[in-house]
């Protein structure tokens, strides 16, 4: 899943780029051409793309963790196989995106180390808990669904290697989404206990899904570098609107109720009431809704979410327990790792 909606691009104005080259670069972007790693590009663009691809790669391998925890508990052989394959796909996305990042000049080991030491970030959505099987269904439906919406627009970007990777990833994400939809449908047409499990998981994931697309747009978002340079092609609020318009009616169809919730520090719902702002405006075709709690969003991004420490600790554990293996493979006399 995943998809980095919100990586800030810091433009270093002190750095003078050659105006002629800059004009040529922007003309290429405006003509809808793809940029390749060896093409000239302003330093801020290269750094921004690296930051974006690295953040996306980090998100894929951290995103593998909450669902990975449920592989050993999946309730049927079919689900067990599908979930293992799904998490494997996410690791594969991470691998592809680290490749893109490596080509922009940072080593994989450095990226993995920066991730576990908190120097770089990953998508906020993975800092929420998945306490039941229902959460696994909701993650695959809502979060993979949100990721597809976002990544489809990223595939219209300008940086060739990233665009091509998005296209490949999106094909796999479509399978994840389908299987998520099937899991949710199965729960919601199941026993009373299963339907309740589905609703409670939905209550936990609805707002993280809305926050998935990032904070409300800054003024003139279209003119800022990320969009001017087609690193991003649709604003956060527009993506969020598309998501609601698709998922609010789908949820209602499945018998789910959309609630405004209050959560405790562990991300568990302690209060819920129907979202009274939720309604379809027949003239615009848009659904109105209650905005997420953006204070919570910033609290979680700063590292104080329910699962930040847990996710990073597991990633660090994996990095450390595998060190002797990487050392033997890369520095031993036996050559490269065996091909898959």
């Amino acid at each position, binding site marked *: 899943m995943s998809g980095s909606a919100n990586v800030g691009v810091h433009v270093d104005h002190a750095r003078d780029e050659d105006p002629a080259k800059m004009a040529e670069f922007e003309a290429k972007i405006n003509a809808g051409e793809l940029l390749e790693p060896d093409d000239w590009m302003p330093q801020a663009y290269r750094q921004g793309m690296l930051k974006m691809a690295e953040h996306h790669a980090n998100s894929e*391998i951290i995103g*593998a*963790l909450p669902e*990975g925890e449920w*592989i*050993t*508990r*999946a*309730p*049927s*052989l*079919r*689900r*067990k*196989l599908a979930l*293992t*394959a799904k*998490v*494997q796909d*996410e*690791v*594969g996305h*991470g*691998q592809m995106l*680290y490749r893109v990042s490596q080509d922009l000049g940072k080593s994989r080991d450095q990226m993995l180390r920066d991730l576990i030491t908190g120097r770089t970030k990953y998508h906020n959505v993975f800092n929420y808990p998945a306490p039941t*099987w229902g959460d696994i269904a909701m993650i695959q439906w809502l979060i993979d669904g949100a990721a597809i919406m976002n990544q489809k627009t990223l595939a219209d970007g300008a940086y060739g290697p990233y665009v091509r990777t998005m296209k490949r990833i999106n094909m796999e994400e479509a399978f994840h989404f389908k299987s998520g939809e099937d899991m949710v449908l*199965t*729960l919601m047409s*199941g*026993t009373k*206990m*299963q339907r309740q499990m589905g609703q409670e998981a939905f209550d936990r994931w609805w707002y993280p899904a809305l926050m998935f697309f990032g904070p409300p747009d800054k003024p003139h978002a279209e003119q800022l570098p990320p969009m001017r340079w087609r690193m991003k092609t649709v604003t956060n609020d527009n993506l969020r609107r598309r998501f609601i318009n698709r998922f609010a009616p789908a949820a209602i169809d499945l018998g789910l109720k959309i609630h405004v919730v209050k959560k405790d520090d562990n991300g568990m719902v302690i209060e819920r009431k129907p979202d009274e702002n939720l309604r379809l405006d027949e003239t615009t075709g848009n659904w109105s809704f209650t905005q997420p709690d953006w204070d919570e969003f910033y609290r979680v991004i700063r590292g104080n979410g329910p699962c930040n420490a847990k996710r990073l600790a*597991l990633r660090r*554990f*994996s990095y450390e*327990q*595998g*060190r*002797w*293996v*990487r*050392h*033997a*493979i890369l*520095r*031993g*006399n*036996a*050559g490269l*790792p*065996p091909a*898959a």
Partner: protein
Amino acid sequence: MITLPDNLKRPFADLLLAVADDKLMLGHRNSDWTGLAPILEEDIAFSSLAQDEMAHAQALYQLIAGLIGTSADALAFGRKSEAFRCAAIVEAPDEFDWATAICRQFFCDHFDRLRLRRLARSSDKPVADLANRLAAEEQIHVEHVDSWMQRLGRGTDESRQRMQKALDRLAAIAPSLFEPIEHEHELVAADVYPRAETDMFETWRNELEQIANDSSLKLDLHPPSPQTIGGRRGKHTEHLPPLLDEMCEVYRLEPNAAW
């Protein structure tokens, strides 16, 4: 299937359960590495291995379910520990030690390939066909795991020591794979489980010793004592019940529901 006499049905189901249960537990243990393996490329490869084992188990459970009248999921998730027929080695946890995971796979894959090749000659056509297909996939597993043995055995001093330690620890329980199921000789006599062309244990030991030698590792294997009663008769290690509690946690919430 047409010719299988009633008195051989249960032993045959037990034999196939031994194959399927080994694969399910091994795949289950390996799948836990998905997302956490030492190298991303190997994370993907090892996960494929896990998926193969679990898919093999599923195919076998479907055959068994037809034989004794139940479903594949009920066999995987609905049995008590003593009804499983897996061997001690697949129950062994690896505590996220990559050397243990690789060595466990090493013992099991070589054994599995031999066992499936033998089943591929079964007088029962559906089982023979399936075993033939699965044996071809095991071939790929064997090559993959052998190359890991060599790379880590010949890697650094640390990796060799870690591999040797894991190999020694698992060599003590690996022969559990060879424990016969109840009434196995009757299945052999009826050619449902054809006699091995060469002594299976010796063949296995030779294969493993050769790879171990190539990998700068030492391996000492002893045939299982004929008196031992273990996993093939439903007597399991202390690791199986907690594994099943975890695996069946969601299934048991509503065993008759679709998930």
